[in-house]
Structures are given as structure tokens and as C-alpha cells.
């Protein structure tokens, strides 16, 4: 079961400058096998850097008729939630793909583009960390092999056991392959 929901309003309400929360720990990722099951992946994709060719072929839902989801055709702030429900495949992790366009570093208003990027990142983390089972607002049909767009307008839900994200090999031309083979996950 997968779900997604729009939490844009929540991230907008955050007073970043007066936030007193302590900063978390940061480290560089090193694959650790079994421990990855307890980790969630947030993939931030800057759609402005994707291939122009992919952007040209736009369809209504952003997905091709062959079942491939072209990220270049997606709009900004669209979140793709990936959920592995069965835990059969240990190499897969829960996570989400956050599409965004980086704000231009306008020299006049530094705060604006900083907060814009910050809200996008916050939205991605919210999706990645939100419990998918209890608090999802828009449940999508669990038909295997389908890619459905939620009613909120900017979320895609996919089955994780059929989705593999090539996170490392093709950063320039990222595609979310819905019907990809199971063994192509490099994680």
C-alpha cells in the first residue's frame, strides 16, 4: 500500500530563522546492507537540469504510455513516494523523489531563494518521513504495475517492489522506470 499527501502548507508555516531545534548529525552515505532497511531515501531532482528532450515530450500525467515516468516532464515540487510494503527485497528502501527547480540566486533577495529551496527540501523530508500507513490522506489503488496521480495534483504513487531508482549511474538523465528489472538497483 502506498500513499502520498500534500504537506506544502505545513512546511510553509515553519519559522526557519527562529527555529530552535538542534541540528542533526550528518555523514556521508556508505552502503551497509541490512541497515538500509531502516533508512529512508529522499531523492531531490532538479528538473531544470534534466534533458530538454524529455521535457519536450509532455503528456498530461507526465508519464508515457509505455509506462515510463519521465521526470523531465514533471512539474516542480512533485513528489513521488516509493514504498516497499512487503519487505521482501532487502535492497529496497522507503523513500520519495522530490522534484524541484532550484531558485535562482537573486542577489536582491537572498532570503527568498533560500527559503524557497528550504521549503522544497522540507517538503521532500516530510514525504519521506511521514508514516505511510497511518496518516496518508490519499490512498491510491494498489494495482500492481500502475502509476497513478493523486487527486492533490502533485504526487505520484508507485509500487516500490517494481520500481528501481538508478541513483548513482545516471544522474543527468534520471528516469523512474516502473517496469524495470529488479536487479538493477545499485543500492
Amino acid at each position: 500500500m502506498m500513499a502520498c499527501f500534500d504537506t506544502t502548507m505545513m512546511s510553509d508555516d515553519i519559522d526557519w530563522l527562529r527555529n530552535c531545534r538542534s541540528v542533526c548529525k550528518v555523514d556521508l552515505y556508505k552502503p551497509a546492507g541490512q541497515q538500509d532497511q531502516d533508512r529512508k531515501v529522499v531523492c531531490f531532482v532538479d528538473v531544470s537540469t534534466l534533458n530538454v528532450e524529455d521535457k519536450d515530450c509532455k503528456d498530461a500525467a507526465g508519464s508515457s504510455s509505455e509506462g515510463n515516468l519521465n521526470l523531465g516532464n514533471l512539474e516542480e515540487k512533485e513528489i513521488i513516494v516509493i514504498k516497499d510494503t512487503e519487505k521482501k527485497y532487502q535492497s529496497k528502501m522507503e523513500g520519495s523523489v522530490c522534484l524541484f527547480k532550484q531558485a535562482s540566486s537573486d542577489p536582491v533577495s537572498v532570503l527568498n531563494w533560500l527559503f524557497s529551496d528550504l521549503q522544497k527540501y522540507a517538503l521532500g523530508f516530510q514525504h519521506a518521513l511521514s508514516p505511510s500507513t497511518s496518516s496518508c490522506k490519499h490512498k491510491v489503488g494498489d494495482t500492481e504495475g500502475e502509476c497513478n496521480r493523486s487527486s492533490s495534483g502533485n504526487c505520484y504513487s508507485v509500487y516500490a517492489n517494481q520500481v528501481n531508482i538508478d541513483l548513482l549511474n545516471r544522474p543527468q538523465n534520471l528516469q523512474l522506470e516502473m517496469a524495470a528489472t529488479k536487479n538493477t538497483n545499485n543500492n
Partner: protein
Amino acid sequence: QSTSATSAKSLSTQRAVISPDGECSLDDLSFYVNQLSSLVIQMARKEIKDKLEGRSKCLHHSIVPSPAVSKTASEIAHEAMELTAAEMCGTGEECKEGGQKSFLYSELSNKNKSGDKQIYQRDSKEFADSISKGLTVYANRVASDMMFSVMKTLKVHSSRKPIPACVVLKRVLLNHAKEIVSDLIDSCMKKLHNITGVLMADSDFVSAVKRNLFNHGKQNAADIMEAMLRHLVSALIGEKKETKSQHLSYATLKAGSRDPKCNNKSLELSAMKAEMKGKDKCKMKSDSCKSLTSAEKVGEHILKEGLTMWNQKQGNPCKMVTKVCCNKDEKRETISASTDSLAKDLIVSSLKLIQYHLTQQARGKDTCEEDCPDSTTGYMAQSTQYEKCGGGQSAKALSVKHLEFHGAPGPSTCQKENQRIGSQKMDTSNIVLKLIQKLLNESSNCEDLCEGENKHSEPKVNKATSMSKRPDEGEEQCQDHQEFDFISGMKQVNWHFIGQLVESVVKLCLMAEYSKNGAALAESEGEAASTSKPTFRGTRCIHNDAMPQNYQDPPGHEVIVNNQCSTNSFQKQLRAVLQWIAASQFDVPMLYFMGDDDGQLEKLPQVSAKAAEKGYSVGGLLQEVIKFAKEQQLDEAVGTMAKKQLLDWLLTNL
């Protein structure tokens, strides 16, 4: 006489020749001096010759005594001398000189005339003395006349500038004066030596001198001693001006010091001081500040020390003074020794207060568990039992019981739910409580060590028995090992332990305050934690003891971030930092960054560690980023600087 007249004439001639020109060198001066000296010598020779001839005449006259003849001869001689003198007086000055000479001659002739009979009767020695005396007088007069004439008449020029005659005279007199003075000193010393030698050989004189010297020295020594004592007392009292009482006291002191029977000088000094204080009460009031100077304190200390030493020497030890001194030393030692215990007591008291606070807080929050008598009685029993035990060895067991109690399932579903919520709310309190109990346990161990090893063995057994109840054997061994290390370390000075305790207390206070005020945060954390796995939470409670909750108590999953963008280094680092800030907002315990192949984010863990160490919040870190971005824009506007790396900047400026 003719020779002298010739030389005088030549001298006057030369002088007459030179004087109109008005110029004369040093050679001329020496020439004149030589001339004058030769003149004096010639005149002296003539005079001696005349004397000798006159003596012979006197002898001749004495042999042929004829007053008329002698008178005629003398008159002739006198006339001849006058004529000679008249001839010699070419100038005015020479007339004066010549006049004096004539007077001398006449005097000598008169002497000769009057003393014909006497000279005849004198012996040769007296005659020689008189001759030498007369010659000396004559030479002096001649010399004075010569100098006078030189000073008056000579116009000496040196290097075309006239030299005053007084300068020349001064030079001559100085040369003579040195010799004369040295001779005079020699003769005086010789005479003095002779005189003193004679005097020192006289025993009566020596004894008299010694007696006088002794009297004078005695008087002076008494004066010196009096002055010294006056200064000493004034320094001790702090008053500079002398008073009448001081004089009296000094007199008393002097009398006492002279009395060999009086040995208690320090007592006299103290009595004198008291007397002065009593009589000069008004003055002491006005100068109260001065009287309380350090000098007075030092004086009092000296007096006390003196009394103590005196009493010790006298065999009557002053118990009061020694007691005071001993008390002071003991106080110092006890102060230094009791610092540790005081600090320890303070920390233990604060720990007990925190523990009591947490217990009360937990008791207040567990009102929903009133229906469950086990829970209430558990807390009450725990607190009371701990109070009874005084934070002893059963604290760990209590903490374990406390945790076990909250983790144990209840009899009904409602109780289970209540227990679950209570366990979530009291999670922080449990950790803090456990830490406090552990610290109190260690402090009690420390006290036991101080009291003795016999007492230490018994609670250790109790500790072992209490710890045997724990389910986790590995933790027990670990704690045993830590306690063993702690015990071994406590054998030395336990400053490090006190420091750790203080630090722990501060942390615990902060955590207690945080748990008290952050109810909403605890609730949100409880909600987030309720979705996590129970096994994960259970292990977290066991392994994470003294660390802050933000870093050791992850509410959710660890998150891996993968950025699929091909931007420059600045954008990549900025994005990573912003993602780090955003993740911190959602209490991500650990944020991993994937795909750092180019090594641009390798400094990010260092930055996060530094930020955590400095206690940066999300807002603070964001403000630093904004500051960096503004600096970057300013540099770009100037166009002179290359872009800085954000992580380097943060490492430097955080």
C-alpha cells in the same frame, strides 16, 4: 751695588724700549722674570756680603771701640746707600722699591748700630738665625715687590691678545702655593704625629680619652636605640606623630630594657601599646583607619608570636595563643580538605533535588494511573525506598525496576494504553532518573571509600546482588568495570570526578528543564516514537544513558539524501546545508548524503559536529548561511574575489 744698579738700568732701559710698543711675548715674560730673579739673587748676595762685612766691622769696632768712628762710618754708609738708591730710582716704581730697600738697609744698619754690643755677646748660631731670618724677610719683600711691579708694569701679550698680569701672577703663586702647602702639610703631620705619639704614650691621657669616648658613645647609643624604638612603635601603631604617652612608654620601655631583671619586654610593649591606646583614644578614633593598617596586624602578630615564644621559653605555654594558632592552621587544613566534601555534598544535594523533582513530576503526570494502584505505589515506593536507602546501592535496582515497570504490560487494554503513553512521556525522566541514581550511587561509593575499605566491601556485595536482578548481563559487566575503574580512580584526588559530577548536574538540570517545559515537544516526539518499532525504543533506553536526546534518541528513521543535480560546488554545498537544516526540522537522527564522488561534501560531517558542539540551532545555522550568501553577493558585486566554499566558511565561522 754697581752690578745691581747696572742690571736695574738695563732692565729699565729694556722696559722703556718695550713698553711703548705695548707688546710682549711669553719669552719676554720669562726674560723679565729671570732678570728679576737674578736681581734678587744679586741683591741677596750683596746683602749677605754687606752683613758679613758689617760683622767684620762690628768685630773691628768691638776690637777698637770708638763710638765716634763707628757713628761716622755708619753715617757714611747710610749716605752711600742713599746715593745708590737714588741712582737706582730711575722710574717711579723703582723709586718705591729703592725706598724700601733703603729703609731695609737703614733698619739693618740701625740694628747693627744698636746691637753692636749684643752681637758681640751672642754666639754664632743666633747670629746665623737672625741672618737667615732677615734674608727671608728681605727675599719675601723683594718677591712681593717684584710681583707687584710685574703686575703693575708688565703688559704681556699672548697670541696678539693682552694677558692680564694677574693671570701670570696667579700662575706663579699657584706653583709656589702647591709646594708651600705640601710642605706645610708635611710639617704639620710630622708635628702632629710627634704630638700624638707623645700623647698616646701618656697613659693618663689615653684613659681620659677612652673615658670621654665611652661616655659620648653611650649617650649616642642610647639616643640611637631610643630613636629606633620610636620608629618601631610608630610603625606598629600606625601613628607617626609622637605623643606624650609615647614618650612615657618609651621611657618605661627604656627603663625596662636597661633593667636586667625584666625579661618580659613583649609584655611591656603590649602594655605600652595599651596605654597609648587608652590615652590617645580620641586620636585613635580619628585615625581608626590608620590604626587598622596592616602594620598593626603585623605588629599584633609579632606580639603574639613573641608572647608565644617567650612563654615557651619560660616554660608556660600560652594555651590561648597556641590554641588560636592551631585553630587557624586546622581551619586552613579543614577548609582545603572540606572543599571536596562540600562540593560533593552540594552536587549530591542537587542530584537528590533533581531526582525528587522528577519523581514528583512523574507522580503528577501519572494521575491517570491512579486506577492502577501498582503504578502509584511503585513511584511512591521507589521514592521512599530511595530516600530510605539514601541513594545507596539499590538505586540501580530501583531504576531497573522503574524501567521494567513502565515497560511491563498492564492487566487491561486501557491500562496498557495508559502505560504506553506514560512510558513515552516519562522516557526522558526515566533516563535522567537513572543517571541521577547512578551518580548518587557512585558518590556513595566514594564516601564509602573515604570511610574505609571495610565498609566498601559490604555495599559492593549489595550492589552485586542488586545488579544481579538486571536482565542485561553485558550492561552489568560494563557497569562493574566502570565502577572498578571509578573506585581505582577515587583513590587519588577526585577533582576529576567532581568536575564530571558538576558537568553531569548541569546537563541533568538542562535536561530536566527541557523535559519540564517541552511538554508539546515530548508529545510530538511521543507520537513520532509511537510509530517506531518497540524493540528499537527498548534498546535505545538501555544503551543511551547520559547523552542528549537529540543525538541518542532517534525518533525516526535515518534518511539518505540523493541529489540528482549537476551544479557547481557552491550550489552543491549550499543545497546540502539547506537539506541538513530541513532534515533537522523533522528530527532526523542521522542524515546521510549519497553520491559525493567529487568529495565536495566531505567536510559536511565536520561542520555538523562543530555545529552540534557549539549548540547551533536550525535558525542559527540558517542565519550563518544567510550571512555567507550575503558575503558572497557582496564579493560578486565587487568582482574581485572568487567564490568561497560554504563548508570551509562554516568550519571557520561556526
